[in-house]
């Protein structure tokens, strides 16, 4: 069928796409000033020891050769070693990437739960009070920085009210994290029937998820509002009204026609937030992949950065593939 060939073709393109992404990010990272050998050895290092370490790390070779070495080890599943954590980057990322995915996924779900209904409501009734609330909300969500909102939340809900745990990671220090299956603590805890771990990890999620959700509902709300409004003004909606169809029916088909745009913005946000949530991760000491990559950039630790780029590129490609599959399911005009 069309469908299968379509997916096949998309998957075929993933490998060259990834190679391109890795090449570009490799070159970009190499242009960052700073010598890891110097940083690793500290201020007391002699020029000889630096030179020998550079030779050991392959830093004395020309850049194309360095790239070839990196790609070759990639094919073996070796993403290099982080000199900061002294662990293989793959191990670090397997642990940290799910943390970010968990945070971002729940944050985005919350953003959808706020943005889509508010957007639809304000498109349906542009003069209602809900539309005014949505308008104001869309503006302020775009103006408030996420880390600031996070700090306010921490102050109110942890410092003052004491309802939620301290912003120190994903789970109470006294609780052993559940055995890693997906790497997402809430799910792993449920799989292990570990109630205590579930409650703890869920309560740690509340504030960072609320931060991301409230901020990112803004663009979703705006996109939903704009497209549903446009669909409601289109000829087919008007003809449904002329045919005496109930309001709910008209709104439903307008929303369905608006879905491709809404799904697109959600997909874009999803890919973006993997790195874009880093400030929230830092505020909550989340220990996610974004935080890991930023540490890498600041300390000329290039393999964590490259590993992060690779992971998030794969993640984005998968998200875009899913977005395309959703188009496929919604719109009969695509692929026929």
């Amino acid at each position, binding site marked *: 069928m069309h469908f299968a060939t379509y997916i096949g073709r998309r998957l075929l393109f993933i490998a060259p796409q990834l190679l391109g992404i890795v090449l570009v990010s490799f070159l970009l990272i190499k242009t960052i000033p700073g010598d890891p050998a110097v940083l690793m050895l500290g201020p007391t290092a002699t020029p000889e020891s630096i030179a020998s370490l550079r030779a050991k790390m392959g830093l004395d070779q020309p850049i194309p050769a360095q790239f070839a070495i990196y790609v070759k080890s990639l094919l073996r599943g070796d993403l290099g070693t982080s000199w900061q954590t002294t662990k293989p980057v793959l191990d670090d990322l397997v642990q940290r990437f799910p943390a970010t995915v968990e945070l971002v996924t729940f944050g985005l779900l919350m953003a959808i739960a706020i943005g889509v209904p508010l957007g639809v409501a304000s498109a349906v009734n542009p003069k209602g009070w809900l539309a005014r609330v949505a308008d104001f909300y869309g503006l302020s969500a775009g103006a408030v920085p996420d880390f600031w909102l996070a700090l306010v939340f921490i102050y109110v809900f942890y410092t003052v009210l004491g309802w939620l745990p301290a912003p120190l990671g994903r789970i109470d220090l006294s609780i052993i994290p559940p055995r890693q299956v997906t790497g997402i603590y809430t799910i792993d805890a449920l799989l292990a029937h570990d109630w205590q771990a579930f409650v703890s990890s869920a309560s740690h999620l509340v504030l960072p998820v609320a931060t991301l959700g409230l901020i990112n509902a803004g663009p979703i709300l705006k996109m939903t509002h704009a497209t549903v409004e446009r669909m409601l003004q289109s*000829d*087919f909606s*008007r003809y449904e009204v*002329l045919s*005496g*169809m109930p309001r709910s029916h008209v709104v439903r088909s307008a929303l369905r*026609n608006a879905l491709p745009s809404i799904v697109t913005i959600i997909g874009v946000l999803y890919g973006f937030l993997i790195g874009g949530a880093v400030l929230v991760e830092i505020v909550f000491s989340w220990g996610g992949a974004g935080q890991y990559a930023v540490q890498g950039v600041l300390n000329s630790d290039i393999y964590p950065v490259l590993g992060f780029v690779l992971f998030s590129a794969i993640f984005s490609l998968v998200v875009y593939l899913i977005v395309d599959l959703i188009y496929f399911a*919604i719109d009969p005009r695509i692929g026929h």
Partner: protein
Amino acid sequence: MMSPLSATTPADARARDLLLDVRHLTVEFPTVLGPARIVLQDISFSLVSGEIVGVVGESGAGKTTLARSLLGLPPVPSRIVSGEILFRGRDLRTLRDAELRRIRGKDLSMIVPNPRGELNPLSTVGQQIAAVASVHLSLGRKQARQAALEMLKAVQIPDPARRMDAYPHELSGGMAQRVVIAMALVCSPGFVISDDATSGLDVTVQAQILDLLRTLAETRHSSMLFITRDVGIAAHFCDRIAVIYAGRIMEIAPRQRFFFEPSHPYTIMLLAAFSHSAELRRQWTVPDVRRRTGAGGGCSYADRCPLAQDKCRSVEPALTELAPGQFTRCHFPVVRR
């Protein structure tokens, strides 16, 4: 007193019941700067059961606005400012939204041009027709689908069972037009407005669709308001014909009189435009130089009228009865001696 434009003769009008009676309908289009522009001015006409009334005019004359206003949905941002739209004795303007919605598509439906844009691109044709049937006739899923299929057969779509599951983009223009007709007629409405339904179709398809429309209107005893730019189509199709120009009815007359004894210079110009006589066309056609400058007093057609005199530019003529059933809005109507 009844609206003077009811039907061919007063006796006729009493004998058959009045289906639609529009009285002094005025629609405005608000402008950002300056006063609102009047799109429809004091439109009055009526229609009895089974009658087909044509409305002809150039584009921009207000035909579509008239069609949509009758359903209570004038094109945004224009709005109805005064007048009554009596449908089966009830003024549609006084009805609440929910009541209007029950009438729209069920008793009073509309066939639109450019049908492919008017259908929901994400639903199949069968679903869309069935949705109308199930909402208005309270049919179950299966019955509604059955009704949709019957309707597709009635509009003579080739291979109707397969077309049920087709999406609008898979249809040709002619087929999409048939689907819209099926949607408009699935509830057997008493009154159908056809807004330029055949424009943009091939001439052969156009003829088929017109035949189909007439047959369906006859078998379902539906009345029709048939809006078109083509005087020729109106000639074949309509019992009475109204001419509108710049939002006003200029002349309304039974078909026979309309074609053989037109009285308004604008009507004659329209007919001349379709005539084979170049001489006639030259004589009556005046280029549209100063187009509808607005309410400057006087006849709105005066600037283009070859017979215009001073009075025409200062005093607006009223619609007056020239012969039984023939009304004209002209100070100096053309009368054949």
